[in-house]
């Protein structure tokens, strides 16, 4: 009996790539609101810039932002594992304990957010200690993600590290390959978090000002860090420049600036849309860079494509239904008044 071969992709690659990039952008948007919002709340708390109700208002939405970040993070990781299993699993195994500890770090952050949220609801005060604990958990998680996924793009280093140590306690030593990238992600989160805080606290001058400052400052710093990261690509820079990356980079930058401009005009909806599209552009750039770094060891075109259309259609219907139900529930929740 000939057994089925599992080495195939069950939809055209372009479709999987679109889904991956789109869901990853959604995840990063939620993550950036969460991480950036937390860092900004900590900063404002330490400097006593906000009133207690303002701080409590932000604290109360952080558990929801965590839920959104976690649940939106599942799909992009699934699509990533579908297309790049050899790279992703290998890197996570070599750093196994650090990777697994992400679960503990996020659980810790999640409970810290809930605790802060309940405390804010009960007493009107926000615990900076709990916020700091949550921020630590999130920063650890983002650092591990940067480290592991950078390692996934360095097959030779991966093999060499494994040959020396099989215990799962290997931390990616090539800091140059992901340190700047991680800082870029954190600064990007600060940018999006600044936008989020300024919109959430638009009725509070202090909160809006802090959010705006983080939005503008974060964007400038993230752009500078992104430029440094680009320069640090060294031998990859040339091949990267010869991809469609550059026009997309310029477009993403233009969208980011448009977001700033629209934000200053208080057109938050359009500003948010520009920011999201800019983030989508950055995610695309990341995708192209991965392919450039993997050249010679991995070829996307080598995948056998064997579409499973009926399960895909089921997913598509459920995905659309999910969006409809989410919007409908939000309307139900925010428009409904309690019974007298």
């Amino acid at each position, binding site marked *: 009996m000939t057994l089925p071969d599992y080495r195939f992709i069950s939809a055209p690659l372009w479709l999987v790539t679109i889904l991956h990039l789109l869901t990853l952008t959604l995840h990063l948007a939620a993550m950036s609101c969460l991480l950036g919002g937390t860092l900004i709340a900590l900063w404002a708390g330490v400097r006593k810039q906000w009133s207690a109700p303002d701080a409590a208002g932000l604290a109360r939405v952080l558990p929801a932002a965590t839920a959104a970040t976690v649940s939106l993070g599942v799909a992009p990781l699934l699509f990533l594992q579908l297309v790049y299993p050899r790279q992703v699993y290998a890197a996570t*195994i070599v750093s196994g304990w650090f990777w697994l500890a992400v679960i503990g770090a996020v659980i810790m952050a999640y409970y810290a957010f809930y605790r802060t949220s309940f405390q804010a609801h009960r007493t009107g005060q926000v615990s900076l200690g709990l916020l700091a604990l949550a921020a630590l958990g999130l920063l650890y998680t983002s650092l591990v993600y940067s480290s592991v996924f950078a390692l996934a793009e360095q097959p030779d280093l991966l093999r060499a590290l494994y040959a020396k140590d099989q215990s799962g306690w290997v931390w990616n030593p090539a800091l140059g390959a992901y340190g700047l990238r991680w800082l870029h992600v954190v600064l990007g989160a600060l940018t999006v978090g600044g936008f989020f805080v300024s919109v959430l606290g638009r009725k509070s001058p202090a909160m809006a000002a802090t959010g705006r400052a983080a939005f503008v400052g974060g964007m400038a710093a993230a752009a500078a860090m992104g430029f440094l990261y680009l320069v640090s690509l060294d031998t990859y820079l040339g091949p990267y420049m010869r991809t469609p990356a550059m026009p997309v980079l310029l477009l993403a930058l233009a969208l980011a600036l448009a977001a700033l401009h629209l934000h200053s005009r208080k057109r938050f909806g359009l500003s948010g849309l520009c920011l999201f599209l800019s983030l989508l552009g950055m995610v695309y750039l990341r995708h192209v860079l991965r392919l450039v770094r993997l050249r010679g060891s991995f070829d996307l075109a080598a995948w056998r494509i064997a579409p499973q259309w*009926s399960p895909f259609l089921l997913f598509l219907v*459920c995905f659309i239904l999910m969006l409809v139900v989410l919007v409908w529930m939000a309307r139900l*929740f925010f428009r409904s008044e309690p019974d007298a």
Partner: protein
Amino acid sequence: MHYPFWDQPIGYGVLMAVIAVFHVFVSHFAIGGGLYLVVNEHLARRDGDTARLAFLEKLSKFFAMVTLVAGALTGVGIWFVIGLLAPAATEALIHNYVWGWATEWTFFVVEIAAAMLYFYGWKRVTAKAHLTLGWIYFVAAWLSLVVINGILTFMLTPGRWLVTGDFWQGFFNPTYWPSLVLRTGVCVMLAGLYALLVASRLAAGDFKARTVRQAAGWAVVGLAVTALAQAWYWKAIPAEVTARALETMPTSVRAIVLSLWLAAALGAVGVALVILAPRRFGTAAALAFMALGMAWFGAFEWSRESLRKPYILTGYMYGNGAEVALTAAYRRDGFLPQITFRTGDDGADLFRHACRSCHTLDGYKALRPGLAGADRAYLLALVQGAHLLRGNMPPFLGTPREAGLIADHLYQRTDHRPLGAIYQVEGLALGRRAYDLRCGKCHAVGTASDKAKSLAGQSAEDLSGMLDMASSLGEGMPAYTGDAAERKALVAYLQTLGQGGKP
């Protein structure tokens, strides 16, 4: 074989169990608990029962904390762990079922959003809107089970998929429906157990008695559904799988028997609670009841996982990641060419990929103590006849040279002094040790492969002669390679076994 091997000391089974067992409890509770909340809210609102509404609001807070945080993240945790422990199987599952998982994700997102809105909505939205959110939560959570159940059951009974590779044939496999009913029953049962735990902290009185009776009723109904579905589930598994497990896996069989006893105890206590409806029902009793339920479910899950042995994907991939389809290539070229990540120590690499998925040297399913006293020739025979040993192990599919490398690797790490020197024993005690080492790996006393009866009436000379020709007695029987002192003691012990264990 295309992945590095995570060589951690805890053991794969233990690590998986720690995260999976916790998640399985929480995830089933998340579904049943949602149903419990919304049904009771409906009844309470209909009856204007404010005490019950207050109770449910309190219940929902802990429920949200457990399901939203621990439930959701340990679910992701399982995914992380299977990718670390069994990357090849995870890859195979994702390639076949990515749209199943993606569909499950859409339900997961709705479930999480609805749970949050339900929890925050008690005093914020209308009663009707709140109930609607509750029902959306429950339906999304249950649909998530509907999807994941297809992938989970596929691993044990892939059915026609092995021939056609068709998504739906693998998804709606022979155990899909019984498992779905069984797990739905478990959800209801766990919801009842949890409600009992919360109810146990209420002030003694009529309300408490009513709540205890109702919650115990949920537990009993859930258990009854589960019990019926479990029988159906067992029958849906191909007979050769269950027969093989009953014959070669005494521990798993004991887990099944234990689960039946626990289910009976659970049912009896539940029925007693429904009848007596105590006005006083302490937290300790509720916790004990909860522990009983979890022990039962844990025993069931353990036996289910064991039934799959020697495979991780039945008929398709062995527990150590070796692919059935590549058997000929393994036999011809060996494992080593397939191992992408090498360390320079071929014996260690082969040991990791062939054995370490299940065994550690000193921890879970430890090899070092069990192989103490073995000589290299016997170790080689064990490696080459692994599939014949107790415990439903996968066959070693590599070349004879590779089997030798594993035997060398083990020999260098085990104590090969005579058994008498290792354990400081002699006589029958030494014979028993020799039996455990050289015979019990297959013919454990009291199991289906116990050959004690065939030894009845045989003289010491007969038994010694049998040891001389051991390698010709049956497929995979190794030659006797122990020393003379152990042989003498072993013969004496075999004689006692032939006499029903009486020296």
